[in-house]
C-alpha cells in the first residue's frame, strides 16, 4: 500500500475540501492502493509516517508549524504542496501586508500564541517535489500529478 499523508497548516482547508470532492469519484479506486497514514480530517494525524507521498496545504505562521513541516519533509519520500497559501503564502498571510496600525493591534495575539512575525510559504522552510496551484487547488492538475506519483510508487 502506498503511504499517503495530508497535512493542513494555516489556511481555509479549501484544498482539502477539493480533495474530498475528488474522493467522491476516486475513493473506491484509491482505497485499494493507498493507506492514509495521516489525514486529520478523516482519521488521525501523525507526523512520523513514514510517507511515500505527503500533501501539504496552508502557509506557515507559527514556530510549531515549522517543526511539524520539517518533520513531514524528513519523513516523506515525495512532498507535494497545493493551493495558494502553501505556494505563495497568501491569502493566509494577509497580515504580512498590514499597515503599522493593524500590526500593532494584532501583536499581542501573535505573542500569546507563538506566531511568527511574518507568515511564510512552504518553500521558505523546505524543498518540495511538486506543486498544484490555485485557490482552491486545480482539480484536474492535482489528479494528474497525484496519479502520476502513485504510479511511481506502484512499480517500485
Amino acid at each position, binding site marked *: 500500500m502506498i503511504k499517503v499523508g495530508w497535512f493542513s497548516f494555516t489556511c481555509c482547508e479549501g484544498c482539502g475540501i*477539493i480533495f474530498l470532492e475528488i474522493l467522491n469519484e476516486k475513493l473506491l479506486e484509491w482505497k485499494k492502493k493507498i493507506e492514509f497514514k495521516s489525514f486529520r480530517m478523516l482519521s488521525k494525524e501523525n507526523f512520523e509516517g513514514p510517507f511515500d507521498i505527503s500533501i501539504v496545504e496552508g502557509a506557515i505562521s507559527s514556530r510549531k508549524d515549522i517543526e511539524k513541516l520539517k518533520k513531514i519533509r524528513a519523513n516523506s519520500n515525495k512532498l507535494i504542496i497545493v493551493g495558494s497559501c502553501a505556494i505563495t503564502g497568501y491569502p493566509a498571510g494577509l497580515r504580512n501586508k498590514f499597515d503599522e496600525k493593524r500590526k500593532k493591534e494584532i501583536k499581542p495575539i501573535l505573542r500569546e500564541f507563538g506566531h511568527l512575525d511574518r507568515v511564510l510559504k512552504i518553500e521558505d522552510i523546505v524543498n518540495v517535489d511538486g506543486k498544484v496551484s490555485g*485557490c482552491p487547488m486545480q482539480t484536474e492538475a492535482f489528479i494528474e500529478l497525484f496519479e502520476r506519483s502513485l504510479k511511481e510508487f506502484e512499480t517500485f
Partner: protein
Amino acid sequence: MHDIVMENLSKMEGHVSLDVKIRKGKVADVKLKVSENKRFYTQAIRGEYALNIPTFVSRICGTCSIAHLLAATICVENALNVEVSEQTKKLRELAEISNILRDHAMHLYFFCLPDIFGKESIFEFTGHEEKVIEKALKIRKVASELSKEIMGRVVHGINSRVGGFIKIPSKERLKEIEEKLLSVREDVVETLDLFSVDWNLESNTNYISLVNEDFDFTEGIIKCSDGTYIQKDEFANYLHRIILPYSQATSFKMMGRTYLVGSLARINLNKSALSKYTKDAKKYLKKFPSRNIFDNILAQAIEVLFCIDKSVNIISNIELKKEEPAQILRKEGIGIGVIEAPRGTLYYELNISNGYVKDGLIIIPTAQNLLKMEQDIAAIVEKNINEERHKIEHEIEKLIRAYDPCFSCSTHFLKVNWI
C-alpha cells in the same frame, strides 16, 4: 483522576486542542483551545474595495465558502441600498441549500459514522458499512454539482457578484440535477435511522436561529428559544463578546447566557416550517424540540432530506431568464447580512466609506457555540468520570463532533495529557 489534555482532535474541520482540569472528581475548568492559527480577516477587510469583499471572505473557510460569500454579498447590498431580483434571491437560497447538503453529508458520513460504527475512520469500513459510504459519495456528488451549476465552483465560487449573478444556471442542467437529487432521496431516507443515535447529553439551552415560514436559510427574523424575536440588524446588540485568552477564537453570550446555533437550533425553533417539506422524516421529527446535543446529528440528517426536497421544489418552479446584476450607485453605508450557514447563524456587518470597507464585524456560528461546548465537555467528563482515560477522551471527541464545529472559521473574531 488527573487532568485531561487533548491535542489536534480529528474528524472535524480546523485545529483544536483541549485542557480539562479535574479536582476531587469534579471538573474544575475546561479550556477549548482553538489552535487554528488566526488569519485576521476582520482586520484584513479594512481598506478593501467593498465589491470585492464576498470573494475575499469566501477564503475564510473552504467548506462554508458559499455561506461567507453570500452573507457578505447580502451585507454589502444592504449597506449600499442595492435591490436584487427575485431570481437572484431564489438562486442564492438554492446555493446555500447545496452548501448545507454537501457539508452536512461530509460531517454525517465522514466524521460521525466512524463513531456510530465504532471504527477509527471510513477507511476501515467493510461490508455494509462500505455500501453506506458509496451512497454518501453519490449524495455529496449531486450536492457539488448543484453548487457548481449556480456558483461556478464548489469552493470559492465565481458566478456571484454584489447585485446578482454574472452567469445564470441553465434550466436543462438544473433539471438533470433534479433527477439525480431524486435518485439519492431513497438512500437519504434510509440513513435517517442510522443517525438517530442513542447517545445522550441533555441541558437547558437557549437555541437561536434565523426563522421564516419556508425554512429559507437566507431570510427571516432571529428567534430564541425563550420566545424572543430579534430583527437581523439588532442581533449584534444583544451579544456580548467573550474573549477566551487561551484560544485563538472569541465566543459570545446573549443576555448573560451561553447559547447554541446550528441544525438542532433550527429544527427546535422552526419544526413546522420544515415538516411541510420532509414528509418522510415525520417519525424522527417527533424527537424535537430536543434538549439533547447529540440530536444535532439527527437534525442534520433531517436537514439533508429537507435540502433534497426543497431544492427539487425550487428547481421545478423556477423560471430562469438572463439578467445582469443590479446597478450599484452608492458608495457609503453601514449594512448587515445574516444567513444560516451549515453550522448556524452567520452574521456580517460592514461599514463602507467611499467604496471601501472602513470596518466590519463577522460573527461565526462555531464561535457562538464555543462556551456551550465547554459546558457540555465538563458535563460529559463528569458523566464518565469513573471510566478509563481513553474512553473519556473518545466521549469528548464524540461530543465535539456532534456540534460539527468549524474551527477554521471560528478564529475570527486530542493527545491527552494526564497531569
